């Protein structure tokens, strides 16, 4: 991992829930570590194991896939598929000797700014330890 980055976190955010929650967190001036980079996706189901692995290749220390709450996904199964894919990616990481907990699935409603910030802070904490 190129050491140039000080352990960044990539957050794939579904534009219908998590991305809006991130904006709301900003509007509420909720501070969270600045090593998070949010990538807007149409649905959590769009995020592929390849994207997550490439993030780790490029030096990310943690990846968050943030989709709608279960049963509230506009695309019905998008967030459920994302959960399976995150579990699959975690096993891929374990195979390579990395900690599977570095990739995490999060379910958010569009107004859950506090939860967004809490999840980001947890991940930031976790990757500091290793």
């Amino acid at each position: 991992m190129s050491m140039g980055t000080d352990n960044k976190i990539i957050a794939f955010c579904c534009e219908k829930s998590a991305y809006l929650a991130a904006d709301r967190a900003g509007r509420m001036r909720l501070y969270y570590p600045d090593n998070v980079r949010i990538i807007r996706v149409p649905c959590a189901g769009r995020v592929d194991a390849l994207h997550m692995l490439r993030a780790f290749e490029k030096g990310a220390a943690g990846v968050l896939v943030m989709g709608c709450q279960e049963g509230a996904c506009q695309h019905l199964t998008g967030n459920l598929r994302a959960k399976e894919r995150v579990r699959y990616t975690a096993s891929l990481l374990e195979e390579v000797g990395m900690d599977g907990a570095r990739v995490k699935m999060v379910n958010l409603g569009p107004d859950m700014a506090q939860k967004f910030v809490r999840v980001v802070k947890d991940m930031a904490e976790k990757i500091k330890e290793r």
Partner: protein
Amino acid sequence: MIIAERKPFEEIKNMIAGYKRILVVGCRTCVTICWAGGEKEVGILSSQLRLQSGRNGNELSILEATVERQCEKEMVTQELGDKVQDIEAILSMGCGVGVQTIAEIYEDKPVFPALNTAFVGMPEREGLWIEMCAACGDCFLDRTGGICPVVRCAKGLLNGPCGGTRRGGKCEIDPEKDCAWVLIYRRLEKQGRLDLMRKYYEAKNYRKVKRPGKIEALEA
């Protein structure tokens, strides 16, 4: 269709230990359809290898390619032609045929299998494949109402079932698995063709299955 499954990463890692520049080759036919060796899987394995290389110091350089069909010499050479010069080892994500075709063409380079070619089968549902044919070279399906005892009976009996069937017509080795011959019985009974099951069948002629098989078209 040929169904294959990716080897555990540990096995692959040990295979290519010591080689720096590696070409990972996918195949766009059977192994794509069963999610084992298509372009997406090539990407995933290559990512894992790159992640792996960073961790214990030896910098791997991974090249990715996907051949239309790895079991066709022309297609392999066309796709890999220029990519192979300074490659030290090739990691094929094709089925066993693909691995050997590449090995034959590039004899100077070690070629490793990234998949375990499992069976000839079909998807039961999205993401779940089951074996249906053992390619035994002497098809028996006409006598069993279209259910293959060679594959789906644990002992491959031609005069089934064995004495060990469990209550409810389940197989001796697995309470979840239906006994093939009970399935055959039910289907032939529905079709009123139980005479087929009552007939005695000679021991199988294994000459027809001499490995490796070879088939030559008459007009070739």
